[in-house]
């Protein structure tokens, strides 16, 4: 049998193979993850709730099912973390908010139900910023550097994956909240096409920008999870009726022939730090050496995305929260409350203009992809490595124009929320001081498979995923 300390480092695919070969069991995997949680949580605080007893019982069930020949696929018996904004029947779901203290849903979000159906085990609920927006300061720390901003709002999912206290995790992404913590924690995070994964039972931040997706330590694991999570759902009005392919089937086909655009003027602007710039250029070079064709492109409409995204987010969030704030506003932290209320003052015509700007942007993006026959756009996921905690909202001293690290984050991640295109963040290396750097691929709607294929080719040519954060925190 594999040693417990080694078990937590396995990927989903490897753990699934180990279960089936008899090298381990779901129970052993679950016990190993629980031991890891016990070891790391005092410092890292990735979890809002740990469901140890339920998880152990589910692991025993998974082992019994597999022994009886009932194989649900590679997620069966695999412990995962679920962001605390996803409804989980019988399990606390507080979305980081005092106003939801003690709330226990009586149904599962569709995405959770689908993962259960695939045999996954929920080990716990991962912490998120209050109501999944940036107005609060959760106690979560990244194991890559405790002094650094750990990402958000899927902060616990990112940290749990980096700390090896889950084999996979669910995050949500309205303005980069899967991809930012994925980049900062050296993970693969996928924000799939808008409507690809049901949002039913996921507490909204802004309905027309919200996505839910997988966070993992490898591209293959991510593809496995998305395959289980995706699909049409009548209970979500935005859910797409588009067939879900087998994302793993062509994942090793390589990057040869892929056409990848780079808008250096926008995505490699002066705010990108030298280490992030070199890492991104190195990804581009490696992909070119693997046979991808990298094309210089220019999409001036990218400049519209920040204002349009923020206007839409503000108004939709204000609409969702207005009634609740009337009743329980005193239980919101002041910063979060202001962030969620400010949309009340936006005139309706400006909201509609922002929606129209989004369509203008989407059409321009589509035209670019068609004209250049692109499979993907590439960029750094975020322009800077993780800033010091608290500095994410402070003007950068190296810029002199008042730009904060957060300004840079949104510049790179908002476009895909606005257009609804799939976007994946994956490890691109490390700074000299050991902070992770991520790159982002943005693809055609419903073509997540191509992003996985390109990202897997790059992953196979590098060793980034072998690097681990420090495992002890004294």
């Amino acid at each position, binding site marked *: 049998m594999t040693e417990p300390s080694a078990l937590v480092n396995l990927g989903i695919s490897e753990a699934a193979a180990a279960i089936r070969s008899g090298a381990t069991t779901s129970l052993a995997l679950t016990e190993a993850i629980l031991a890891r949680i016990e070891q790391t949580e005092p410092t890292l605080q990735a979890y809002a709730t740990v469901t140890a007893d339920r998880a152990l019982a589910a692991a025993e069930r998974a082992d019994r099912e597999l022994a009886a020949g009932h194989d649900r696929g590679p997620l069966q018996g695999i412990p995962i973390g679920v962001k605390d904004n996803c409804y989980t029947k019988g399990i606390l779901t507080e979305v980081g908010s005092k106003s939801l203290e003690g709330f226990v849903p009586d149904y599962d979000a569709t995405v959770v139900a689908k993962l259960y159906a695939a045999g996954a085990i929920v080990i716990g609920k991962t912490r998120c910023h209050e109501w999944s927006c940036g107005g609060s300061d959760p106690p979560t720390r990244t194991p890559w550097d405790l002094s650094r901003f750990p990402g958000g709002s899927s902060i616990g999912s990112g940290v749990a994956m980096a700390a090896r206290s889950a084999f996979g995790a669910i995050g949500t992404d309205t303005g980069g909240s899967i991809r930012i913590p994925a980049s900062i924690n050296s993970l693969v995070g996928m924000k799939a096409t808008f409507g690809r994964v049901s949002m039913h039972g996921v507490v909204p931040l802004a309905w027309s920008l919200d996505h839910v997706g997988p966070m993992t330590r490898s591209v293959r694991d991510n593809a496995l999870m998305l395959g289980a999570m995706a699909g049409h759902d009548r209970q979500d009005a935005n859910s*797409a009726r588009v067939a879900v392919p087998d994302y793993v089937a062509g994942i090793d086909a390589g990057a040869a022939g892929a056409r990848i655009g780079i808008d250096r003027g926008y995505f490699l602007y002066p705010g990108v730090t030298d280490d992030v710039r070199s890492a991104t250029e190195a990804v581009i070079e490696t992909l070119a050496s693997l046979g991808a064709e990298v094309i210089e492109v220019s999409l001036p409409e990218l400049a519209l995305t920040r*204002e349009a995204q923020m206007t839409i987010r503000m108004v939709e969030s204000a609409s969702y929260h207005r009634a609740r704030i009337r009743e329980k506003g005193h239980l919101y932290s002041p910063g979060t409350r202001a962030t969620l209320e*400010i949309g009340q*003052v936006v005139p309706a015509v400006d909201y509609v203009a922002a929606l129209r*700007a989004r369509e*203008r942007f989407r059409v321009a993006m589509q035209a670019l992809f068609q004209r250049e026959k692109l499979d993907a756009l590439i960029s750094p996921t975020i322009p800077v490595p993780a800033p010091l905690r608290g500095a994410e909202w402070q003007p950068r001293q190296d810029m002199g124009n008042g730009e904060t690290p957060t300004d840079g984050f949104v510049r790179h991640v908002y476009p895909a929320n606005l257009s609804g295109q799939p976007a994946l963040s994956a490890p691109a290396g490390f700074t000299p001081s050991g902070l992770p750097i991520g790159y982002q691929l943005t693809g*055609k709607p419903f*073509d997540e498979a191509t992003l996985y294929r390109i990202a897997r080719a790059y992953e196979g040519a590098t060793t980034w995923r072998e690097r681990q954060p420090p495992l002890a925190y004294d």
Partner: protein
Amino acid sequence: MKPMEQPADIERRAAHLKDTARMLGLAIESEQLVALAAQLCVIEALEGAELADAPPILRMDADWHD
């Protein structure tokens, strides 16, 4: 592509937003409302030629290359 924000427009917008916030009893920092005013000025300036033929919908098609 991105229109320049005019200080006078931002000021006008910010004053309206502050009035609205006061009327609704919202405790929002003046600085945030000025930033929002600048944001909305950009959006407003796009109306007309820039947003012609752009309806307020989100359309997800799987056939971008067809």
